[in-house]
């Protein structure tokens, strides 16, 4: 369960309100799409959820733990993939994965099993021995994604997950996300690709100028909007002002 209560964050001493009074609850087994135009507050919200930013006000609770009060308990339960796959370039892919597994205290057998499976799925089984410096953007994204999946987190939070992934990896990723939800886990992701959100998400939240302006399933959103067509037209209508 993810709970955001009255979450707010401003920059420049309150001059720029990035996120304002955000309330959101996401239950287990759900794929949640977080949409919004550039600068709407998506990444700020995500950074507050994973403990990279301190909220000005409000609360983030994941699986009942407050990120401000019990950061380690929350971090143990989440996997986070940022929008930019920046990783230690001077480590090999395997060293990075081993480091992440050490940090999440993943037992040797479990990490080996997960690594073998994920590396094969994402076709990284040879490249994993090379320095990350030699990876393409997509390969870096894959290694970050694999690193976040090895501890098998209950909540996966992903910022722009499909940018840079090739069609095959993108397909594998979607399949894996769906199977995670079937296991009762949560996938929370922000995206600009509305078709993906439309086909893939159980529920969608649209944020604009730091405020949540729409929330619900596609059908519920269609009911709210005047032009009841695609998610794209709903999105454009809601974020027009």
């Amino acid at each position, binding site marked *: 369960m993810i709970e955001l209560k009255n979450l707010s964050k401003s920059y420049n001493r309150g001059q720029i309100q990035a996120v304002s009074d955000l309330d959101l609850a996401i239950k287990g087994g759900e794929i949640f799409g977080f949409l919004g135009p550039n600068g709407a507050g998506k990444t700020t919200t995500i950074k507050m959820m994973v403990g990279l930013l301190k909220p000005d006000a409000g609360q983030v609770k994941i699986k009942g733990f407050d990120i401000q009060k019990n950061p380690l308990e929350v971090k143990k339960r989440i996997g986070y993939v940022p929008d930019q796959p920046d990783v230690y370039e*001077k480590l090999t892919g395997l060293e990075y994965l081993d480091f992440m597994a*050490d940090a999440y205290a993943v037992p*040797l057998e479990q990490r*080996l099993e997960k690594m073998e499976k994920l590396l094969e799925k994402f076709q990284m089984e040879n490249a994993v*021995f090379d320095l990350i410096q030699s990876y393409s953007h997509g390969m870096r994204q894959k290694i970050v994604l694999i690193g976040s999946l090895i501890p098998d987190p209950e909540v996966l939070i992903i910022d722009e997950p499909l940018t840079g992934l090739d069609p095959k990896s993108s397909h594998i990723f979607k399949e894996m996300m769906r199977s995670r939800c079937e296991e009762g886990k949560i996938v929370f992701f922000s995206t600009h690709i509305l078709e993906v959100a439309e086909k893939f998400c159980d529920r969608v939240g649209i944020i604009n100028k730091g405020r949540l302006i729409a929330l619900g399933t596609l059908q519920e959103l269609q009911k709210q909007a005047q032009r009841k067509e695609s998610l794209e037209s709903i999105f454009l209508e809601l974020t027009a002002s």
Partner: protein
Amino acid sequence: MRWSKLWILIRINLKVTFGFSAWLYYFRKRDRRFWGGLGIFAAVLAGVAPLFYFYLLLLQETAAELAGTGWEGVIITSGAVLASALVFFLGLVYVISAFYFADDLDRLISMPFKPAEILGGKFFAVLFSEYLTIAPFFIPTLLVYGLQVEGGLLYWFFAIIIYLLLPVIPLIIVSLGTILLMSITNLSRNKDLLRILGMVLLVVVLLGFNYLVTRLPEGGEMEFMLEIMQEPEGMISITGRAYPPSIWITEALTAAGAGDRLLNLGLFAGVSLLGLLGLMVGADRLFFPGLIGGQEITIGGKVKPGLLQKKVRSRSPVLSIALREIKILIRVPIYLFNSILILIIAPVALFFPLLLGMGGVNIDEYIALIEPDLLKLGGAGFFALLGFIASALSSSISREGKLFRISQQIPVHPNYQVLGKLISGLLISLLIVPIIILAAIIIFPWSPLDIIIICLLGLLLSVPLLAFSLLIDLLRPYFNWQNPQQAIKQNINVLIAMVGGFLILLGLGYVMVYLLERGLGINWIFLLTGIGAGLAGLIFLLILFQVAPRRYRDISL
């Protein structure tokens, strides 16, 4: 070479290197980072002010003693040689980093700029950094001499020109050496290793050259020294042999006739400009061959089955963090040079000339004069000193840059993370052990037991110093660097940690010597020093543990 393009690149490089735009933005937005940064700068200035004051006093006294002897110009020559040597050694790392490891190079290569224009832009940014580096050493010599001889308008005018030109020649030599080294090594598969070896070789060559030109003629040392004493220009000519431009600088400021001065200034400026021209020509031919593909690395092919099982290891998070730190330090050439190789280069640079009897000093006779117990304590102090000047921990948080995000994200308590970093620093300090053993074999009369005591005490003394260094960087990390070099060299935390660490070591040293003079047995002093260092380490560690959770939570990138 198109001057308008060069000017565009110089401007942007200066803005990026010195963060002018960022400071202006902070000032306009009334961001506290502006006043915070200014405050830190003022605090560091205040911290080094006493040292600077003593330097000024020393210069004034030397100038007063030299007055009327005809040797007044020695001050200028020494200042010029010292400043040029600084540009040489610091420039080597600055240049390699700015020319080949800056983040913006990929974008610049794809833009319609000529190689010489890109390199020129970087060169001038480094040159400006060097003005700041040499200012505290060279400007006082110009001031002291100018005030002593009551130099006229021409003196001050020439002094400004010379200050601006002084770093040019050494920086050109370093730049040409670097682009040549990089273009040759770029052909190799093990280019990182070759480049590190090349950098070490350059330092060794410079040291060797310095030794060759300044050594005294064998068998005729006395006559040689007398010759220097008798001829007013003798000392200057000796120094000048090591670095001829220092003669032109001295003559341009101290010669009797205006014509002579102008001639020497013209010679200095002419050679500097010719050098610049040569660098630009060299850059057009050699810069891109060394740069393009410079970041490429060899990718392995298909791997053998079972390799994954063999390579995957499970470790404690603390050890995993310590190993991550060391691996990255070793694999980034600039970090390796600054944080690890310096441990070897610094003692060699310090003791090599003494060992070879430079300056007429016989090292054995000199050592025999020092109390053996004091020498052992000095050895432990030197161990600790080397460990913290290597700056591995005073830039440890800053070096993470935007990847500090990972440290904030992982479920490892910040106290374990700083502990991991501290362990990495101590592991690096262990590299000093072979240096101490070597020093015992070649120079110092230390027994194996002495070596063990020195190393143990040195390691214990390192704990508070390393913890203090890490604390400074944790309190005020510098993340906005464009290339790895800036994370260390433009990181004021390294300087603060060095000054602070030096003061801590000085304080401990003072107590040790005081106790020794009061007749306390050496074993007691070793024990008390060990306990003192352990306690100081514990205090700094506790402070670190108080600060780390808050900083890891509050830092936003």
